[in-house]
């Protein structure tokens, strides 16, 4: 029995540009990218209103939001699976086992994280920003926009955290995507598959590629931050 950890050989294979690996990297990137975009569109407004609002039930809403962050990915996968399967409410759309199904699931994962980070950023901002903007004649929406500009570093952290969660998760991608070679196989489902085949070195090499991809994305976001 040779050591299954001939990592060097596996990495060489991947760097040589295995088309399956390239496809998996691309699928991971664009599904996670779409999910974090949609998740931010949903999460940022929720975070802002919870961060600014002084309404009854706010504390309960924040607690619920915190709890949603702990939602296991397979549970999100199961819930949406039930909706998207042919027997489910949205069955006729035929979305199960498509990239779009993964994007939907990962959006649900990302939104609470983005909302929470946004909430923290907004709550920590100077409380006079919004009233000041509004006395200067800005509308409510415009005032909120000024506030978001002010806390943009916090928002970036929100997006980075959400992106990290969705590109690293395997439960939703596996259940809703089905790990179909060429369409819904992502980095993480490929790692799970290689592990199940006992190809530990290849799985580990894929893991390193995933980390490298995440590094590039974060370097890019870091650049944005310093502009």
């Amino acid at each position, binding site marked *: 029995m040779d050591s299954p950890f001939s990592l060097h050989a596996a990495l060489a294979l991947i760097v040589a540009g295995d088309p399956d690996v390239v496809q998996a990297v691309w699928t991971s990137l664009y599904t996670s990218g779409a999910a974090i975009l949609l998740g931010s569109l949903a999460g940022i407004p929720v975070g802002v209103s919870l961060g600014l609002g002084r309404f009854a039930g706010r504390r309960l809403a924040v607690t619920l939001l915190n709890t949603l962050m702990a939602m296991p990915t397979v549970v999100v996968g199961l819930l949406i699976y039930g909706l998207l399967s042919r027997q489910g409410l949205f069955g006729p759309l035929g979305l199960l*086992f498509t990239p779009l199904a993964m994007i939907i699931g990962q959006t649900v994962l990302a939104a609470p994280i983005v909302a929470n980070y946004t909430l923290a950023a907004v709550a920590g901002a100077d409380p006079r920003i919004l009233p000041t903007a509004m006395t200067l004649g800005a509308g409510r929406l415009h005032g909120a926009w000024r506030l978001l500009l002010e806390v943009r570093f916090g928002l970036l952290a929100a997006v980075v955290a959400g992106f990290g969660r969705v590109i690293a998760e395997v439960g939703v991608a596996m259940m809703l995507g089905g790990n179909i070679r060429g369409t819904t196989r992502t980095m993480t489902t490929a790692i799970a598959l290689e592990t*199940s085949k*006992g190809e530990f070195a290849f799985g580990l090499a894929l893991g390193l590629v995933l980390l490298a991809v995440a590094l590039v994305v974060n370097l890019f976001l870091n650049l944005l931050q310093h502009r």
Partner: protein
Amino acid sequence: MKSLASALVIFLTLLTLPSAATAEARLRMSTTTSTENSGLLRILLPPFERRHDCRIEVIAVGTGKALKLGEAGDVDLVMVHARPLEDQFVAAGFGVERRDLMYNDFVLLGPAADPAGARQAATAAEALARIARAQLPFVSRGDESGTHQKEKELWQAAGQRPDGRWYVEAGQGMGEVIIMATQKQGYALADRGTYHAFKQSKTDLQIVFERGAELRNPYGVIAVNPRRHPHVNYPLAMKFIDYLVGEEGQRIIADYRINGEPLFFIDGN
């Protein structure tokens, strides 16, 4: 804000393009992890895909779930190995036209020293009974897969209800179970194909019992019933099944080798 919204719309439209641009038909097949991991599908599918300008999307899960996907109409056909469940699937009206595809066989794996003495058994059931008596580690799939179904049949034939600390229900795929049994230096029931793929470098377990009619593992293909699920691509699924059980498909299956050893057999030989 407006430009952001329009950018989003454009982005989402782009996302749907890859599927819209490829007008080729799509056929979905659920199958078992052992079939997918054997590598056979990579050479069995492309000739058909080219000829009919279609894509066959393979979803590899345990046999139980593969059939469930067929029941729900989430796939167009299933390729599995658990004859009693397959017959139930057809009898309940979920599938039509079950065809014999190929077969391989199960093998009982164990440590080279074989402390339970499974090699001396006359039948597979007796080999399991010896392991149970010796209370040596046995790793079960425990996932309602075809292999798990076969294992339960064998325990029943052995007149045993496996229970106790020695009996490990992994709830994982064939590969994980072989690895787990290797780590524990225990026993496991595996399909020959996966064992072949693993014995080179991933396990030092050996076959301690093989052959015998009870270890035969027949695979079937079944089209999902179009009367129950009108959206399935029944005509293409039937064309594919005809290809699989026809001369060309059967030849590819019979000629398939890993490290010079055949993995699957057709009924002709």
